[in-house]
């Protein structure tokens, strides 16, 4: 009895503590509702990511830098260089052509048919990658494709006089452009819509020319949005696999195809973890690009929200 009087806190918690505990219990019960989601994401997203990261640094006998050091091999460095070149070129071409198309749409009537059709088509074509796109180009400029045959029979022009380039880097560049341009239209159109006609009028009323308007007003305003969209296009091309896999069956010019061969060939011992090291390299490149993108889009939002 005396004990209870001496230490009231222990036997009967004060009202605040009891309330605090109840809040804790409700919170814990609330958190239970999110358990299925987190359990799922941990199993199928976090664990695979960890497998890649940890696998890149482990071999048969635990930790080893061998896989990551193997990234320095000439053929892997070449693959990374080619992947980056492919992504850079298609991002640049896609960004320029896409921006031109987006600008053409902005000058059209806002609710007009042209704009609606092109935006809808861009939405579909930006998703149009993979095997079907590869076959579309095989039907177009493959060895017996529509355009190849037409050019040869009617105009006597051999598309592949200097070798078949469709299955190599130039071919990949052409095919990738097909989904990069529509993606640029979707990403860049909102930024162009944010440009107000009043800014042009203001430039003109101050005596500025069209050239000055584009270089001093619209250009600097659109530059972050343009660069950000280009980064997105870069990441898009860099991580694409299916189109290249369906098109290129001989040799592995780019990183995703090198990973394919590391995954499917079990001849060389330790190749599995080399694949993980290359995958980690890809993640790092994409992460840097996306971080830059996030930075730029914050800058864009200031003017062209």
């Amino acid at each position, binding site marked *: 009895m005396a004990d209870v009087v001496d230490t009231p806190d222990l036997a009967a918690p004060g009202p605040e503590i009891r309330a605090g505990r109840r809040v804790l219990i409700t919170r814990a019960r609330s958190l239970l509702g999110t358990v299925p989601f987190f359990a799922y994401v941990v199993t199928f997203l976090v664990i695979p990511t960890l*497998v890649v990261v940890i696998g890149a640094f482990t071999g048969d006998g635990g930790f080893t830098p061998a896989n990551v050091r193997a990234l320095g091999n000439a053929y892997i460095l070449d693959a990374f260089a080619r992947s980056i070149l492919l992504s850079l070129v298609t991002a640049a071409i896609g960004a320029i052509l896409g921006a031109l198309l987006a600008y053409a749409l902005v000058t059209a009537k806002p609710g007009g048919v*042209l704009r609606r059709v092109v935006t809808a*088509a861009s*939405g579909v074509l930006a998703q149009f990658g993979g095997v079907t796109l590869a076959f579309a180009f095989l*039907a177009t400029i493959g060895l017996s494709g529509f355009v190849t045959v037409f050019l040869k029979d009617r105009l006597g022009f051999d598309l592949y006089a200097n070798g078949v380039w469709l299955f190599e880097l130039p071919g990949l560049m052409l095919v990738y452009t097909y989904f990069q341009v529509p993606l640029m239209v979707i990403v860049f159109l909102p930024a162009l819509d944010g440009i107000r006609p009043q800014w042009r009028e203001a430039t003109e009323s101050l005596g500025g020319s069209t050239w000055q308007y584009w270089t001093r007003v619209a250009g600097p305003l659109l530059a972050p949005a343009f660069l950000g969209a280009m980064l997105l296009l870069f990441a898009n091309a860099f991580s*694409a*696999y299916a189109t290249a896999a369906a098109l290129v069956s001989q040799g592995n010019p780019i990183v995703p195809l090198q990973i394919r061969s590391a995954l499917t060939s079990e001849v060389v011992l330790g190749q599995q973890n080399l694949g*993980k090291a290359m995958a980690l390299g890809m993640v790092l490149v994409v992460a840097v690009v996306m971080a830059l993108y996030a930075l730029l889009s914050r800058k864009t939002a200031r003017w062209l929200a």
Partner: protein
Amino acid sequence: MAGLIARRARRQRVFRWAVVLVLGVFFLLPLIAMVEFSTRDGAQAWRLLVDWPQLSETYPDLATGIVASLGQAVLTALLMLALLVPTTVWVRLRLPGLRRLIEFICLLPLTIPAIVLVVGLAPVYAWVTYFLGGSSLTLTFAYTILVLPYAYRAIDAGLSAIDVKTLAEAARSLGAGWGTVMWRVVLPNIRSAVLSAAFLTVALVLGEFTIASLLNRDNLQVAINLLGKSSATMSVAVSLAALLLAFVLLLLLSLFGGRRKAAE
């Protein structure tokens, strides 16, 4: 001034049509070429495509792939909805502090290329095969992760448009349980967002190749790729058909989206 504006409008019109024309040719040419290529030896390939018994007899791999893809699409849409809708609603109602985290996690797959994910998924799928067998339908698990960013954005936009908290509290105060709140109050209110998410999921799953191919499972794209090695005409015809299907799906999606915007 009026002359200047008229001249600029004319110049813009010329520029507009020049750009649209040149790019239009670039974008339509492969589609036209696919039609031409697939009809070179008559409409045989197309006739086969609409004749299911004949098709599954002539190209059993393709038939397996189509069935597998449809199954994956339906299962992925269901799993995605079962996972995302209750969680996002629950977080909005009870744990608003977790919203950023959920959003971050859902958008994460955008920064992890599928080819990287498949490298890490291989050991996970060894366990999936151990527990559930090697059926192609097990790809549903990986696909649900792949569609998470798109589905999350659609559903989140839908939930933002309604006042979930008030609706849920009103229903609860009238004696509804959480199940009733979900099924009869929240879901009917975000119907178009759910439909958008489901359409996007189906379109993405029907076009997936990377994971299916590298985990040695069947689906439509894997079958088309395999077909390309034996029958070029047929593979182009199936490609075009798959593309048209995706086109219709995404067009329906933009119609739904358009109507939702118009209603707001």
